[in-house]
């Protein structure tokens, strides 16, 4: 059937580069550079993974990436949830104008802020620190929008009931709002985690010392020295891509919610 054939062809095209990446990572050195090309390794070997972890120390880069992504996710969860909730449910002077301003700021490409941000971090002695990568990434307009959209559906009566019981605004936020926002927070966390793990340009600029590099930056660096070694580079790519694929596949329901939420404005 035509429909089935089109789906199969499209699906194959979508996953093929990743399948080949995994296959080539298990090939012996030089095997990926033969003609006609092999699709599967003749004699699977772990030598490239071993080389990556021992000689090239990618474990360190993976930990760096994990640390940075976890810190950004954890902090952004709190900061953006508080702001998104306030924009949805709390009345304060200038709220609506401020919110519109944030919407306008969404069009500004991040590269515009990049150069002065680097100089600012330099003045604060944050260049080549994890803080230099993490702190500027914590507040996210996109996440604030996401949380606000969701928080609008929390009934006001629920909040007022807690207030009547004498709860402080902080208490209301912690005990009523955060639990009610759980699905939105899950979406936002996965989204932020993957985006931070995959980020390339900013860590490349800020983490000038090679030992603090995140995994994608380290991988691009390896390419400079080991471009000829296709199988090794594939193993490195597998290690970079696999964690995000695993997180995505495990939690895709939440992740995909963010896609449509982001498009509906």
């Amino acid at each position: 059937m035509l429909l089935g054939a089109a789906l199969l062809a499209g699906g194959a095209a979508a996953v093929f580069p990743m399948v080949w990446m995994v296959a080539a990572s298990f090939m012996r050195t030089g095997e990926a550079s033969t003609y006609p090309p092999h699709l599967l390794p003749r004699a699977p070997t772990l030598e490239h993974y071993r080389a990556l972890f021992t000689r090239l120390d990618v474990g360190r880069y993976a930990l760096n990436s994990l640390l940075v992504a976890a810190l950004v996710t954890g902090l952004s969860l709190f900061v953006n949830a508080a702001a998104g909730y306030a924009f949805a449910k709390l009345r304060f002077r200038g709220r609506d104008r401020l919110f519109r301003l944030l919407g306008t700021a969404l069009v500004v490409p991040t590269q515009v802020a990049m150069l002065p941000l680097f100089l600012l971090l330099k003045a604060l002695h944050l260049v080549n620190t994890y803080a230099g990568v993490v702190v500027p990434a914590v507040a996210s307009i996109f996440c604030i929008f996401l949380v606000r959209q969701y928080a609008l559906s929390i009934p006001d009566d629920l909040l007022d009931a807690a207030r009547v019981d004498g709860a402080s605004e902080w208490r209301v936020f912690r005990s009523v709002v955060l639990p009610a926002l759980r699905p939105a927070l899950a979406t936002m966390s996965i989204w932020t985690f993957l985006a931070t793990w995959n980020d390339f340009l900013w860590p490349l600029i800020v983490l000038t010392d090679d030992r603090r590099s995140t995994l994608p930056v380290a991988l691009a660096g390896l390419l400079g020295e080991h471009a000829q070694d296709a199988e090794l580079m594939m193993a490195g790519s597998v290690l970079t891509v696999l964690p995000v694929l695993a997180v995505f596949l495990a939690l895709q329901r939440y992740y995909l919610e963010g896609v449509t939420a982001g498009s509906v404005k």
Partner: protein
Amino acid sequence: MTARPAATGRAGWWFVAPALALLAVFFVLPVLAGLALSVTDFDLYAVADPGATRLVGLRNYARLFADPAFRTAVRNTLYFAAVGGPLTVAASLGAALLVNARLVRWKAFWRTVFFTPFVTTLVAVAIVWRYLYHPRYGLVNYALGAVGVPPVDWLGDPRWAMPAIILLAVWKNFGYNMLIFVAGLQAIPAELYEAAALDGAAPWQRFRHVTLPGLAPTTLFVVVVTMIGYFQLFAEPFAMTQGGPLESTTSVVLLLYAEGFRFWRMGNAAAIAFVLFALVVTLALLQRVVQRSARQRSAA
């Protein structure tokens, strides 16, 4: 109820303060500073001693527009966005129609398959594609050879390097837009299709007269967002071609990166950033105008 405005008035500010403070210091302030930077001759010496910076007015901009390297970068970026954008949107729409078709089983499975490339780490998959494009051993040329097409030096030939990067970008990004199209498709009322079918409309006519108009706002949104994203092309050429061969894949952001962080000509680089900004704002405004006129037309 009565005490709310005053009581929550203060609290609201406390809740938004951390996010706003971070955005102000690490985003708004740098953007404004960038504007200032772009009219100075801030360079490597100024990094060490900012006092040595001088105002040069619009000289950076004037020099940029006279600079062949910059014009090439703008041309490359527009080429990438103008060809890659529509291709990505077409592929996304095709995939959305496929996974949303009534007869398709395991819809969620296919959606996930098509979406997977989008979550991958760009640098890693760009490296994979580098080897797929290898002129002698690459699988792309092998597949083409099977149908009789002579080998192409994808990343080594200035004519083919950008198309190769576009193909990678389409592959990487179509799944994201597909989901937005699926949401758009599901928002089209089923009654419209039923009415069209009653009027004897064939599938193709239903697609032309019901689906396409129903998707128009979604399409406009997807096109603009994709193009804005594509104006920021960077990691693909960085990992695959370093902007070569013969500058054929040097993008605006790649040039910005090189000027700013390799040669430390920050004033120049800031001017590049604002040209990029202007491009993006133009597109966003264009979307507003089109959307508004479309809304007026449908209201009239």
